[in-house]
């Protein structure tokens, strides 16, 4: 009788233990899905998606206004050159195919650090709403990457030694705030590369050059 009771107790403990292991494993396997995220994480994602959708809505409105204007011009027999030229200028400046100017920030990084670290700063600046960026006078466009070992830095294929000057046009408070936030680029850079130096300055009128890189795909074909 006593032996049977012990076996039952042991079986009960084993069942509870098995249940707990399964629950734990399921919780871990669902680690990357939304269901496993905290309320704070979900709220942060919602805030970002909302901001992104607001920007998309603005863009949609702009495109629809352009379409209405072009249709009206067509009906009245008026040349649609004005709208097309305006769109062209906007795209050329945004894509880095034309020079742009305006307020912004200038960040100088100097010393022993690898080039890919500077890519984190560029990512922060784009995320903060930069209109354009250049590094050592080279406009950042798709295909231009900052790389290289400490002291042998490269911007694209151009040697940069051990100093990078990152110029970014945009709202300078937003850009500087993004770089200076606690746990942001500057604090991580200072902690990771204590021998390197940084200098961040607000600039009232920066001029970023156009890229000299051809952005038209060589082999890929456009699909409508």
């Amino acid at each position, binding site marked *: 009788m006593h032996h049977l009771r012990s076996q039952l107790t042991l079986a009960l403990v084993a069942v509870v233990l098995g249940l707990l292991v399964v629950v734990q494993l399921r919780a871990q396997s669902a680690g990357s899905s939304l269901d496993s995220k905290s309320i704070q994480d979900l709220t942060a994602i919602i805030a970002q998606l909302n901001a992104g959708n607001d920007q998309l809505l603005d863009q949609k409105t702009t495109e629809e206004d352009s379409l209405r204007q072009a249709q009206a011009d067509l009906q009245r027999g008026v040349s649609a050159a004005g709208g097309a030229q305006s769109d062209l200028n906007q795209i050329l400046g945004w894509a880095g195919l034309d020079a742009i100017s305006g307020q912004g920030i200038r960040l100088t990084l100097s010393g022993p650090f690898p080039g890919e670290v500077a890519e984190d700063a560029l990512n922060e600046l784009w995320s903060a709403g930069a209109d354009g960026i250049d590094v050592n006078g080279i406009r950042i466009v798709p295909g231009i990457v900052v790389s290289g070992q400490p002291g042998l830095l490269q911007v694209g294929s151009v040697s940069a030694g051990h100093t990078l000057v990152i110029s970014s046009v945009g709202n300078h408070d937003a850009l500087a705030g993004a770089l200076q936030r606690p746990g942001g680029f500057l604090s991580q850079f200072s902690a990771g590369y204590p021998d390197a130096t940084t200098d961040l300055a607000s600039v009232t009128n920066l001029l970023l050059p156009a890229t000299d890189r051809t952005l038209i795909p060589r082999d*890929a074909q456009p699909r409508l």
Partner: protein
Amino acid sequence: MTVRPRRKRIASWQGTLAIALLLLGFLIAAQVSAQAPAAKYSALERPGLVQTIQDLQHRHDDLAASIVATRSQLAAVRQGGQGRQSDLIALNQQLQQAQLAAGFTTLQGGGGYVYLSDGAPPPGIGGNPADYRVDAADIRTIVNGLWRSGAEAIAINKERVVTSTAVVDVGGSILANSAYVTDGTGQYVISVVGPSDIWTKLSSLDTFRAWMEQRYGPFHLAIQYVPDSKVLILGYAGTANLHVAQVSPAPSTTP
């Protein structure tokens, strides 16, 4: 004569145990009652928040599709209205070329797909489970490596990588072009159009080898490249507005 003290000892021991168990029970009850409202609140909030994220992502996809459709209509209207005006024909051609260069146009070409997946923490090993998940820095390392290896166009899941693309970690998820690119399975697909030896070139880069040592090895992230002769990369459908900048058509250098 000896029985009475033994009974006394047992009674005393049982009494102490009973008091300890009573105290333990009280503490557990207090703890559970303190946690219950928060847990209940979280459990009630979560499905609504998850649904909101899914709705916002659908809204994002709808807006992006609408922008692409409006751009196509606009191009058609402008071409229809250009007639034989040579200046307008040239302007529309310039605009099309600029849109192609800026990444607004869907492209197809040879290249492949890089599949990047979360690792699974081995049982019994401590550490932070988040280290085993693909993060924005992993994606950026691969994307920058692909550019350096000759890529012509890249997309992260459906999001085209353009000049202003930021890839960021938000709440344990990855956003690119402010779109949620985590599908919940922990797998990311980076589509690339580029040279046929792009994977070989990527694999030889110092940054990629360092990434393999620091992330692929210790945290079991999975990476695979599948070449394809007809990779389709959608055009960028996001915002292309300049916030404070003025366009200066004449090329110049930073002072």
